[in-house]
Structures are given as C-alpha cells and as structure tokens.
C-alpha cells in the first residue's frame, strides 16, 4: 500500500498534505471500483448477449425507475462527500495561522526572489524553519507575466500576478530540500524556472540567519526600512502613528481595518489596499478627509520602500 502511495504521490511534507492525499486515495478507490464494474459489465454483456443470428430479437425495456433513481442518488451522495471533504481541507490550506513567519515572494521571467522579515534576500531558494507556519505574500514583478508557485511535496500551488498580491502558506513537517516549479506557462524559460525550499531546524535556521545578516549589514528589515521612509518621505506630516487625527487618517491600527470611501464603497485595509493607496492615493479617498495626498510615490519610492511602509504600518497595532 505504501509502495502504491509513493508511486502516485510525492512524499507528504506539509501539515495539510496528508489530508489532500487521503481524499486523492478515496476518489481513486471509488473510481477504480466503478471502472472495474463498468468494464466487467461491458465484457460480460458483449459475450453473453453476442449476436447469435441475424434474426435475433431483443426485449423492449424502455426504462426502470428504481434503477435510474439508484444510479442517480448514489453518485449524488458520493460527489457531495467529495465536495465537502475537498472544501474542508481547502479552508485549512487557505487559512494561515496568525503567528505565521511571513516571506515576500517575487516572481519574474525567469526566476524567484524571496525576502525575509529581517531583510535577508534569497533568489531561487527559500530557506524556512521546520514546524513553523510560513505565509507567502506573492507578487509577480511589475510588467512581467503570470507565474505559479508549486511545491509538489507540500501540495501547495498559487499563481502570482503583477500589480496584485496573492497568498499561500505552509508548515513543513520535516527538514530537507524540496523542489518547487513554475506551473503557469510564462515563455521560453518556463521549464527552467524551478528552485528549492530548504527546510532547516530552528537552530540551523538561526545560524543561517546570523550568517546571512553578517554578510550583508546594509540589509534593513522591511519594517525598519519603512520607519525610515515614514520619517523621510514626508508621511508623518499628515499621518500620525498614535491614533490622533491630522490632515490624513492615522496609521495606528490601520492594517486590516475596514475603510469607508467617499464613493460609498468600503474595503479592508490589507496589503493590497495599503500599497494602492500609497501609489494611487487619489483613487479611493477616506470619508472625512480631503483628497490632497500627492500622487508622486510611484516615482519617488522603490518597490521595497513601499513594502517597507506596509510592514511598518502593519506593526502599528
């Protein structure tokens, strides 16, 4: 059985992988029973009822309600089970634990950049600690095309788009190296756009962090970079960090709070919203505030500085 399992699926290395595999095997077993039944019926009928002479006659059987209800209701029950099962596991796959370790992922043709909370940057390899939920905040480089992040052994896959964030999370159960692929066709280098996720023990991960940070003293963590930008780019003139209201809304507790806009719409202040309202401040204007924020930050801030601001704001809870 285990041999068969390994034949069909790669080893299950994330916390939710085993659930996915269980459903995979359940559907396979039910399908196999169905297929064998149908095949036996075809062969049996073809032999038993083969035409003996050209004068053969057949009985007139137009339908059979009992039979037809049976083969409608049983599959109906089965598909509802499969739907519910898949839904249940999907909810888990899409709900990162609150204390997740967050990594920014950037895809481009043809490679991957990863950025850790402490500022460490990696390319085409992602280093994470074992037994820790890791949340991926993913985006394709501006002006680039779609890509998709697929780690078979984690049963994880998520497309990346330019100008919009997508998210995924996983918790590795074991240490080791696990290959990832790009699974959204992106051109000539598509099949070369793979890399590895390196899962280390907590101690090894700390050691690796120290090494990396020691090698690049200039790399500031995003949130710290954000604090500098906040102070230097002019934000603090209008936005407080202590809850008081100035020309613009305060940044304290802004993250994930619902915002109301002058056009009547509302939105949760997630990463996408924060980035958009920095880069396109006049698109959505908060109720009670003037529409006078400068529309210049697309030119004056680097992408990383914008992300830094977002991280900085997220810490102001």
């Amino acid at each position, binding site marked *: 059985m285990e041999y068969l399992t390994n034949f069909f699926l790669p080893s299950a290395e994330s916390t939710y992988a085993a659930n996915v595999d269980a459903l995979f095997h359940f559907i396979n077993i039910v*399908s196999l029973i169905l297929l064998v039944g149908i095949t036996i019926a075809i062969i049996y009928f073809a032999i038993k*009822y083969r035409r003996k002479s050209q004068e053969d006659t057949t009985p007139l059987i*137009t339908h059979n309600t009992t039979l037809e209800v049976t083969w409608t209701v049983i599959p109906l029950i089965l598909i509802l089970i499969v739907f519910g099962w898949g839904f249940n596991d999907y909810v888990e796959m899409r709900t990162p634990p609150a204390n997740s370790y967050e990594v920014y992922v950037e895809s481009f043709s043809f490679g991957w950049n990863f950025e850790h909370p402490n500022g460490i940057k990696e390319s085409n390899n992602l280093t994470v600690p074992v037994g820790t939920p890791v949340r991926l905040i993913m985006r394709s480089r501006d002006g680039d095309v779609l890509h998709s992040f*697929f780690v078979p052994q984690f049963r994880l896959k998520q497309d990346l788009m330019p100008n*919009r964030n997508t998210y995924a999370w996983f918790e590795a159960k074991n240490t080791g190296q696990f290959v990832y692929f790009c699974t*959204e066709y992106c051109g000539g280098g*598509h*099949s070369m756009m793979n890399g590895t996720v390196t899962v280390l023990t907590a101690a090894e991960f700390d050691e690796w962090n120290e090494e990396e940070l020691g090698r690049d003293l200039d790399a500031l963590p995003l949130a710290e970079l954000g604090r500098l930008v906040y102070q230097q780019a002019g934000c603090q003139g209008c936005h407080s960090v202590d809850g008081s209201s100035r020309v613009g809304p305060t940044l304290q507790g802004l993250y994930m709070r619902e915002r109301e806009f002058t056009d009547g719409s509302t939105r949760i202040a997630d990463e996408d919203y924060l980035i958009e309202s920095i880069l396109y401040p006049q698109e959505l204007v908060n109720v009670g505030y003037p529409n006078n924020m400068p529309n210049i930050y697309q030119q004056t801030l680097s992408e990383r500085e914008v992300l830094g601001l977002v991280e900085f704001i997220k810490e102001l809870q």
Partner: protein
Amino acid sequence: MEATTNGNGKTLKVRYFDIEENPETHYLNAEKGIKSWLFTVDHKRIGIMYLASIAFFFLIGGILALVLRTELLTPTENLMTAEQYNRVFTLHGAIMVFLFIIPSIPAALGNFLLPIMLGAKDVAFPRLNLASFWIYSIGALFTLASLAVNPIDTGWTFYTPYSVQTGSAVILMTFGVFIMGFSSILTGMNFIVTIHKLRAPGLTWGRMPLFLWAMYATSVIQVLATPVLAITLALLIMERTLGIGIFDPALGGDPVLYQHFFWFYSHPAVYIMIVPAFGVISELIGTFSRKTVFGYWAIAMSSLAIAFIGSLVWGHHMFVSGQSELSTVVFSFLTFFVGIPTGIKIFNWLATMHKGSIDMKTPMVYACMFLFLFTIGGVTGIMLGAISVNVHLHDTYYVVAHFHYVMMGGTVIAFLGGLHFWWPKMTGKMYNEFWGKIASAFIFVGFNLTFLPQFIMGSQGMPRRYYSYIEQFQTMHQLSTYGSYVLGVGFVIIAVYLAHSLVKGAQAPANPWGARSLDWMTSSPPDQHNFKYQPVVSNGAYDYHKPMADFTLGIAEDPAHHGHDDAVKVEAEKAEIR
C-alpha cells in the same frame, strides 16, 4: 393507399417505400466539377468538405503531437529549442481544439446526418450552411498564415499578459479563431432551426434519434457561449494593437478577468466537443445491441442538463489563479453536478447492452472503448473538481491526461466509431472489417500507453507545458512517447484501409447494420435530395421490436417528389401513424 392521421391531427396518405440499393445517381455523382463542391448548398457535400478539412488538420495536429512527444523522450534538447517547443505545443492545442475537435462531429457528421435523420431535404438555411464552411476556411487560412509569419507561443489559452507581450503572431491566430467562431455560431443556429422546423411528419421530439438531441444541446451552447470568446479575443486584439488596458496589469487591466472570459466560453466548449460524441455513442450502442435505448428521455435530457450546468462551472479552471476563495468553493460545488447526468448516460448505455443482441463490429468496438476511456476521463474530472486535490494537480500532467481521456478517449474515439458507422452511408463503400479491428486495437493500446503514465507523473508533480524536466520523470515520459507512436500507427492503418475502401471497397447496402433511424432509410450514398419520397415517421428511432418495413413509410403522393416516383416500387399498404 389509405388516409391516416399523424400526431398533429392532419390526415396524410402514406404507403411503404422500398429503399433503392446501388443507386445509379446519388449526391456524389449528381453534379460534377470542383465548383459543384465549393459552391454546393447540399448539406451532405458540405459535411464531406468539413470531414476532409478536419482530417487534414487532425493530421497536422497529430504530427505536431508526435514531434512534441519525441522532444520529451529525454530532458535535454532532441529536436528543437524551448522556444520552438512552446510554439509546437501551442499549435498542437489550438489546431486540435479550434480546427479539428470543435467542428469534428457537429460540422462534419452533424451536417451530413442531421437533415437526413429529420427526413428533411436540407438544413433550414442551406446557403448559410455554405457560408459557415467558407467562414471556417477563412479562419483556418488566418491560422495557417500565423504559422508562416511567426508561430504563436502562448498556449491555446492565450493567457494575458503573456499574450499581450509576446512577439509571436497572436493577432493572426486569435483573429482566425475569432472568425471560426462565427462559423460555429451559424452552424449551431442553423441546426436549432432545422430541428425545430424541418422534422418529417410524425417525427415527434420523443421519436428523434438521440444524436439529434445531442446536436441540439451542442448547438445551444455554440450559439450562447461562442460570442463571449469572440468578444474576449476582440478585446485581446484591441489591447495588443491599441494599448487599451483590459487584461494586462501593466496597462491597468486584470489578467483574472481574461481567465473568466476565456473559460466562460472554453469550458462550455468542452461540452461542444463531448456532447455530440454522446449522441454518436447512443446511435452505435442502440444499433449494435439491436435494442431500444434504455432511458431515452434520461439520455436526451441529460444532454441538455450538461449544456446548462456546464455553463456554470468555468471557474474550476481558476482554483489557484487568485480568484476569491468563495468563487472557488462555489465553482467546485457546481462542477460536481456535471458528473450526475454524465454518469446517468453511461449507466443507460450499459443497460441498453443488457439483454441486447450485440454485434461487435468496428463501430461497436469503438463504442465500448469509449465507455471505458470516457469513464476514466470522467472520474479523473471528479478528482480535479475536489478543491484541495486540485491545488496539487492543477497545471500538471494529470490535467493533460484527464482532458485527453475526455477529448480523445471520448470525442475522438466516438468520432472514429461514427466515421466507421456512417462510412458506408457517406461513401457507398464498405471498409475492411478485419483491418478496422486491428487498427482499433492499436488505438486502444497506444492511447492508454500514452496517457496513463501522464496521470502518474502528473500526480507526482510534473508540470505541464514543460520543455525539459527533472530526471525522475523520464521513465514515464518515455512510456508516453512510445505509446504515441503506437497510436500513430493505428491512425495510419485507418487512413490506409479507408482510402482503399474508396477505390476497391465492396458496394455498401442501404442499411448494413440493420438500424432503424431515417439515415438508413435511404440509399447508400443518399440521393441528392436525401430521399426519393417524403418520409413519415410512426415509430421511435430505436423501436427494434417493430418490423423494418414500419420505418420506410412515406407520403403517398408528394408533389415535391414528382418524377421520382417511377423509380420507387409501390407497395400500397395501410399504416397507422401513432
């Protein structure tokens, strides 16, 4: 000759007609010369022209597939670079989908058969029908032109923003597909009107062959869904040429919107491809089991149900695209419900074989193959509908294997079955039964050898559209490639013996299989105007418990057929039209 009543309360004089064997004049020799083909309004000739066209494109698409498989024998470069490979797989997909499989059964077999099965002289709008063929040809020319200019490398899905940015001939290709869409819409509309208005006297909806129900459901999808593809491709072309930001985020557009638009057509299009195959299978299993098809209404209505539900499930192509989780859940839920009517069909076909008189002629071999292969295609679809599993399998070879089991194991196999079934009717010649079975064995073995390994490597994590791969997948890739060669041999054998039958085949009888529907109640090949009498239908298409003569009723004195009557042997008989 007696006056009797048909279902509408009208009184018709009917009598039995004899069906002419070895007709001297028929639709193939009624007119001569290339113009008599290119400008014909005869639905049969148009059907044959479609058949020749799709055979040509199947050949091209098939050669491309063999080239792809050969490249994948090893992870390194065998025949071509990654860029060339990307063009080849795009063309394989686009040609097979838009130029072969969508028109395969509806436009080729459907055009030939639909009016005959209805007892009509032609479709409702014969000139429009010719226009459909010409539009298809013009669209095909654009597609071929894109080959000559700069073959497209976007994948057949033309996903943005890649399709906006690539330097290949996206506009020529999509414009070709855009044009062909109109052909599809016009054919669908023509068929709907024809089925509504041109049924022979007595041919109630409940007496129609199930092939017609399938064609009806298909036509509805063609008319409703194809315009969305046209709009989407038009917007894509505008984005590329005018820089209007609709789908490209660099211009302020939304790539997920493109995917919604594209699959809003292209998922129902899957049913444009497979529902006609269901129709063919109903004919084959009924005829070769010589038995009333079990659950006629269940099969007829399930085609419509599939057309309806199938229009609500497009988002299952986008579970990991970044669409909202709620959409994903709703689309997953709806997706499973396509499985119910599909399952009902399979069980009904099996029940039809039960206690039948089964004659394992080549078409029936294909029908049984269809049941086996399509079941695999169906249950793996259930697998892909389960959200959590889909996240793992999405865009891997598992998906490639799944849709080949549905499209090729389903539609192409049913098409082959139908082609053999109606070959005598279309050409007036019998093919070689022995070689027919040999070829079907090659097809079956080759097909499974090609695509079963793809399920396994897909669930192991092999992504699709990959030019090279990591070494662990090589064994499966090699098996798949060898399988494709076996499959290729099977198709070559078919081409050879069918071509041979045209030249040296035995003359086909009018009704070689002992079928009951109207397409067999005319000579092989049919008369230029299908029948030499106006058929009147008094029985269901699968009433095998009734004598054959009951199926050859026609109006006794039909002014439209004056002059032909002398060729028909009169057998004045009384007939009750129920």
